[in-house]
């Protein structure tokens, strides 16, 4: 079966720095995979490559059957690849509900003229979108918070709002960049079950970057480990945990210490 997301030989350099080299991944439909590695390993850069923010120097990226190389980020997003950002990038001056509704724009059928005339078709679509957006907020545990400005939400809720916004794109594949960063242990527990529920309820395939090893090892069925832009190990949680290359990458080589 065609993987939901496929990458092969993906590389990018920034000046002299090989930020990602020769990356490979086949995320199956419905899979929940993890991507880990020390700071600066190239994880976020990989997300930027997959979502078209950066264009790879080489390599192949496909979403289902669709070739993503050279497509604009907006086209990639609209075709079913959604993401969250490590350094939260919400639309701060907009309400939580409007943040979610922005992501629905790509799928709107009524055009500008209908918008200005407020035709019945426009009104129906607007109503349906609003209800859907509220449902997405509820799905991530933000029910009733739609009117609040994004910037006024507490940190953990902002991370959740990012997820709701990504879901509103109705993606096939969801990329989560350190969703647990800055959350307290209790919030992390909530997030853990949320990630599982999302995958099971919405037929999503998920790729998760996370520094919280407990979380990754627990929810991900497969883990890829990056270091200095290169894949140094891949396998189940149990496999990568004991991989000497992984241990060395995290603890540093004996000579360096």
């Amino acid at each position: 079966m065609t993987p939901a997301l496929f990458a092969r030989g993906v590389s990018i350099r920034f000046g002299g720095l090989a930020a990602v080299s020769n990356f490979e991944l086949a995320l199956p439909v419905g899979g929940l995979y993890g991507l880990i590695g020390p700071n600066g390993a190239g994880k976020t850069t990989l997300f930027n490559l997959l979502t078209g923010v950066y264009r790879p120097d080489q390599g192949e990226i496909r979403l289902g059957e669709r070739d993503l190389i050279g497509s604009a980020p907006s086209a990639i997003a609209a075709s079913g690849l959604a993401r969250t950002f490590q350094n939260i990038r919400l639309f701060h001056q907009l309400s939580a509900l409007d943040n979610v509704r922005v992501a629905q724009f790509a799928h709107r059928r009524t055009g500008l003229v209908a918008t200005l005339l407020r035709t019945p078709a426009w009104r129906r679509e607007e109503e349906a979108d609003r209800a859907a957006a509220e449902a997405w907020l509820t799905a991530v545990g933000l029910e009733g918070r739609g009117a609040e400005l994004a910037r006024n939400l507490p940190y953990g809720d902002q991370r959740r709002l990012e997820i709701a916004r990504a879901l509103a794109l109705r993606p096939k594949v969801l990329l989560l960049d350190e969703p647990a960063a800055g959350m307290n242990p209790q919030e992390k527990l909530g997030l853990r079950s949320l990630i599982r529920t999302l995958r099971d309820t919405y037929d999503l395939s998920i790729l998760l970057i996370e520094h919280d090893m407990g979380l990754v090892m627990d929810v991900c069925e497969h883990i890829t480990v990056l270091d200095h832009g290169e894949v140094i190990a891949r396998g189940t949680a149990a496999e990568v945990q004991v991989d000497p290359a992984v241990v060395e990458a995290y603890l540093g080589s004996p000579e360096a210490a």
Partner: protein
Amino acid sequence: MTRVLQTLMDGVAVGSTYALIALGYTMVYGILRFINFAHSDIFMLGAWFSFSLAGVFGWTLAGATPPPWAAVVVLLGAMSGTAVLGYAIERVAYRPLRSAPRINVLIAAIGVSLLIENIGQLPIAFGTQPQRMPSLLPDAVLFEVSGVSIRLVDTLVIGIALGLMAALEWLIYGTRLGLAMRAVSTDAQTAALMGVPVDRVVSATFAVGSALAAAAGFLYASKYPGINQPAHATWILLGLKAFVAAVVGGIGNVRGAMAGGLLIGMVEIFGAAYLSPHLRDVYVFALLILVLLVRPAGLLGRATVEKV
């Protein structure tokens, strides 16, 4: 042939003035990533400070014969005056906005620009009448090449401009201050962590950029002595073309600004001479659009990817 040479001379003279102004735009952009809209007004003030200073010495009176060192005094005086002003503007209007969205700084800069122009027009400042800059740079026909007279004033304008650019090259690539400037422009945060006094470097950048613009103002007024009133459209337009030069050369790139300035000067003067003298501004902006379309990072600029 005659005409080509003459046009070339004018193109280099005008182009080197653009280059001097463009340097200020590009240095500020390189460090703070915003367009200092008030920079064209600093250039204007350079010309008017020069005129006023000459007036203080009585050199603007009819029949006055300024001594040979007059140009030096006026040039250095105008440069120091605008350097102080550029420093002050950054302190008062831009520094408090250092972490604000860039659009706010841009608007503040437009405010400063309008403020300078409109205060400059007041009777207590320079008034609303155009003035005639006395010829402080000596002029004579140096020699003739196939019918073209190479004039001393043109040669001096070009010489001073190139001299100042060489001095700037030395400042940026040969001194500790220049090293700090390059560090801040590469990555201000890291530079600050490494102990570079970012605020002082920014101040210095504004002072140096403003002084260069003032020099451009002096040189421009020496070549074209009719100086327009402070709020006249020509000033903004000249500043704008210098900014275009910075963009065409690659904004943030010092050598790019020099090259861009000369290129814009050539395009404008050759266009004016051989196509139509009335559309000189149109050529410059057409070139800008062309560059933005095919090479948005400018001729010498490198395309950079914004970190996400």
